[in-house]
């Protein structure tokens, strides 16, 4: 296949924790996206019978049409990438991965004559073990054997894709999604030995938000994940310094008091006297070690523990500044100053806003990390937020597929190149 053909037939697929972003290079700046989840319907349900025979798993916008009893959801609704890593034998999760991948091919396979398959660039978590690569290649092999839609495929770590889309060859990418946070130094290649993963992400911010809702008299709402997430996004604040912020909040409750409506419902949630609790949500993402969180742990809120998922270790309680320092210090000393100068924060878990009038007390993620690193004796650091964090991984995939030569075959040693199935 020619280089020109490859360049015009790159298809990016970003298997994010919450969303699957996909589409060919011809889409331009933004990909298609769908929730990265699958629903295993009850085969006796009426909707299943109406919508077609034998659909084992439903993905995309069809899911709401199949949803049944609420108590069934946890067992039937599968988010395969919630932790970035899928267990080897988690067949349901892999079924969802296959189905969402098929949607990408189904949506974009052109009818043009001479179409000989896409050059697929997929992106997985930096801590994805080798068997995940093998499984994903198997899925593409299967799809190609049925539809002839994959000319070749490759898989790259998500942080590398972020660095590529930001045009920065030397950097540290801190990717924080729903389930975890990965810190990946990159110097033309990902420095795999220096990757640090934290067992904390947006889901943990949801947990503390749920506790705050309970404490404020909204215990019934605390069970609904979607409501909790919306509340977190609307009321969560990142304090410059937690102690100072809490003191300020207690003295000036009117400045932090908030009433929010859940869109499309009659639900109204009000925090007034205890509105200072809003600071705990943001702080928890960056540093869960403050003594204020101890009372929540004592009351049963799960404490992020050190876990091993697949072959990867995820640290639970290390604060984010410390984790970045640990990761960079695993790289050659000469490289470290360059890495500190280009720290890219990516992922929905870094999207915190600073309300007007609270600029002295609240900060955004960039300033929070800068403050944390300054406190660790690093005054001269360069931190930036990823542009369009939702799409940056997909964009990196597209650049990767566009640039890597067609003749560069996959190597399991380097974990790079094009894997071919024909």
């Amino acid at each position, binding site marked *: 296949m020619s280089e020109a053909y490859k*360049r015009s037939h790159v298809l990016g697929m970003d298997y994010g924790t919450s969303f699957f972003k996909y589409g060919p290079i011809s889409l331009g700046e933004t990909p298609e996206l769908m929730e990265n989840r699958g629903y295993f319907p009850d085969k006796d349900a009426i909707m299943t019978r109406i919508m077609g025979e034998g659909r084992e798993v439903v993905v995309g916008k*069809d899911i709401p049409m199949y949803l049944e009893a609420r108590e069934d959801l946890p067992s039937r609704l599968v988010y395969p990438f919630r932790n970035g890593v899928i267990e080897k034998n988690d067949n349901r999760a892999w079924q969802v991965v296959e189905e969402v991948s098929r949607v990408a091919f189904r949506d974009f396979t052109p009818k043009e004559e001479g179409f000989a398959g896409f050059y697929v660039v997929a992106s997985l978590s930096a801590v994805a073990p080798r068997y995940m690569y093998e499984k994903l290649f198997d899925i593409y092999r299967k799809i190609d054997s049925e539809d002839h839609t994959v000319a070749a495929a490759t898989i790259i770590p998500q942080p590398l894709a972020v660095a590529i889309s930001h045009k920065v060859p030397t950097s540290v990418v801190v990717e924080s999604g729903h389930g975890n946070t990965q810190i990946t130094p990159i110097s033309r290649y990902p420095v795999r030995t220096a990757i640090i993963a934290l067992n904390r992400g947006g889901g943990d911010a949801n947990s503390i938000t749920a506790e705050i809702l309970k404490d404020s008299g909204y215990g019934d709402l605390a069970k609904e994940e979607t409501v909790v997430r919306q509340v977190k996004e609307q009321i969560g604040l990142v304090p410059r310094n937690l102690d100072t912020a809490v003191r300020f909040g207690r003295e000036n409750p009117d400045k932090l008091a908030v009433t929010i409506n859940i869109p499309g419902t009659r639900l109204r949630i009000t925090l007034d006297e205890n509105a200072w609790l809003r600071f705990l949500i943001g702080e928890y993402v960056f540093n869960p070690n403050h003594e204020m969180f101890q009372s929540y742990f004592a009351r049963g809120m799960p404490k992020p523990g050190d876990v091993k998922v697949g072959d990867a270790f995820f640290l639970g309680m290390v604060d984010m500044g410390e984790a970045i320092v640990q990761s960079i210090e695993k790289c050659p000393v000469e490289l470290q100053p360059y890495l500190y100068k280009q720290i890219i924060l990516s992922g929905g878990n870094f999207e915190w806003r600073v309300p007007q009038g609270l600029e002295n007390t609240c900060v955004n993620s960039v300033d929070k990390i800068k403050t944390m690193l300054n406190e660790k004796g690093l005054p001269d650091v360069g931190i930036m937020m990823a542009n369009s964090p939702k799409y940056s991984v997909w964009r990196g995939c597209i*650049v990767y597929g566009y640039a890597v030569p067609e003749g560069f075959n996959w190597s399991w040693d380097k974990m790079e190149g094009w894997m071919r199935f024909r």
Partner: protein
Amino acid sequence: MSVSRRILQRVEKWFSKDGLKPLNYDGESGELVFSNGSERVLVKILFEDEADKDTLFYALTSVFAEASKYSMVYIAAPTRIRRENVDTAPFMKAGIGLILYDEYEVYEEVPAESRVKRVSSRQGRQPVEVQLLEKSLIRIDSSIRELSERVDSLEKAYFSLLREVREIKSLVEKKMIVAEKTVQQPPVKLEESVETGSLPSFLKDNPWVEILSKRSEESS
């Protein structure tokens, strides 16, 4: 379509089963002549508004006078004429056939005698019962053919509906997202993009393009 036109069509269809095609129609007298090349059949049609017992027998008298010119002669009347207790014996005696029609079908009440046969082979003439049986067989055969055609067309309609249902199902599978999608631009060939300078912003001046394009060299 007018009522009279529909009745004419029904009658034409009924005779077409015997290979007879309409040759001439006199709207004033309501007389329709069929032919299959060798035989000619006269049918006098009594329409709904004029048909009663009296007009029926008047029609019988009028066609009887002309009967010798045709192989067979029929009178077509609406089915409701049965309610008037019409005596069909004069029809049988005269060898004039009587057919009745309604909204959907045409029925043969009294078969007409074939005058051709009477003239050409009086001696070898078959009994009326045998003639009737032959005619019935022909009708059954033609009915079977018609049913078979109907089954064929129903089958075609079924398969076409099945195809449509499958297409709709596959559209549904492609979810409502398709409807929500903004009109998707046709894929732009990248070469065209390069020429027009419309590369996506993240590809323009990206140092990684050069770094990655040398990957195979670094590897070897």
